[in-house]
């Protein structure tokens, strides 16, 4: 794995430290491949010859914008519509109906996507909700989506995707119903876009106020943090998650050994987490 790497240990450590200082994301030795693949597009667009030259440039005093771009490139998460498929089925078949039943009197529903990346996850959930739970339209419905990257949030708010992106995981009937062409791209219609409150947020730093949450989506983002930060994040989620609420992590992630207040629930082919009953 590391053997084929074109990145020198010094350069890797430099980038590792830069990313860690600005986002608390941990890139251990062994993640060289990730650094290379994420930074190649930036290296090309800056007209550089490789990671070595990039780091050289980063070390110069005037390189601020470049630092931001490197952090951005390393912290974005590859995502797609209805990624992994099963969690959305679990939401549709079990989680949302159950929460709606529990909230029937207050008619309020709040969801938070904690790593919205380019927006496919929040928009997938919204499309699924509009298709299957039209009653929510008359509820007090709040959908918060946050990300550390301002650039990603701009992408989210714009809601435009390439042909490659809409080809992946998105049911064709949803494409027809919820998208419109925007030049060469496909854009989520206003009626869906305006439902999301996109916010800039660093999971590893202080959190702004969050309302009580029915569903938290935190998929494939904890993997970037070290154990202490993971624990801190789960501890904060615990404060905001309603006692009967649900937390979704990525398929390979777990709260085990991190936070004993969560218990795993298996739903169809997807696992998720709830607060353990006192």
């Amino acid at each position, binding site marked *: 794995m590391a053997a084929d790497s074109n990145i020198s240990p010094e350069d890797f450590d430099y980038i590792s430290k830069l990313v860690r200082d600005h986002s608390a994301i941990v890139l251990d030795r062994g993640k060289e491949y990730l650094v290379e693949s994420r930074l190649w597009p930036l290296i090309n667009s800056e007209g550089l010859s490789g990671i070595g030259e990039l780091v050289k440039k980063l070390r110069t005093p005037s390189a601020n914008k470049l630092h931001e771009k490197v952090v951005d490139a390393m912290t974005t998460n590859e995502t797609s519509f209805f990624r992994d498929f099963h969690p959305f089925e679990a939401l549709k078949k079990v989680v949302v109906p159950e929460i709606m039943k529990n909230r029937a009197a207050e008619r309020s529903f709040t969801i938070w996507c904690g790593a919205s990346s380019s927006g496919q996850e929040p928009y997938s959930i919204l499309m699924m909700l509009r298709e299957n739970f039209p009653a929510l339209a008359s509820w007090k419905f709040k959908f918060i989506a946050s990300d550390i990257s301002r650039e990603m949030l701009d992408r989210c708010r714009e809601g435009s995707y390439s042909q490659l992106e809409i080809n992946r995981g998105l049911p064709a009937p949803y494409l*027809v119903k919820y998208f419109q062409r925007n030049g060469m791209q496909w854009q989520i219609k206003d009626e869906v876009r305006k439902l999301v409150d996109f916010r800039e947020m660093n999971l590893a730093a202080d959190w702004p106020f969050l309302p009580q949450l029915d569903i938290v989506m935190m998929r494939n983002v904890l993997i970037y943090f070290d154990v202490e930060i993971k624990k801190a994040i789960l501890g904060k989620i615990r404060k905001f998650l309603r006692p009967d609420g649900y937390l979704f992590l990525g398929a390979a992630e777990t709260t085990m050994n991190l936070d004993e207040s969560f218990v795993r629930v298996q739903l169809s082919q997807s696992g998720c987490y709830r607060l353990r009953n006192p």
Partner: protein
Amino acid sequence: MLKELGFEVYDAGDGKQALDRLKEVGKIDLALVDWNMPVMNGLEFVCAVRANPDHNDMRLMMVTTETEMSQVVKALEAGANEYVMKPFTKDIIVEKLNLMGISQG
């Protein structure tokens, strides 16, 4: 690609040939349909299949270079279940199979 995924695969060069094959084989679970074909194009094929209630369960997925919204709408209205724009990868096909409730062979 589909054989790798474990499916039994038939092919046809145009819509009419495809209909003939379908008649021969009797029941086919899924067709990947190109749009632009001679003799009978993909849209006509979809219409022909959907006109026959014997094939109600058959899944029809367009796989085509046609990428205008109006084309997607036409295909779905004619009865196609899914739509893939070329170029595509194996991952894209697998994800679409999932969406149509088809597990790998």
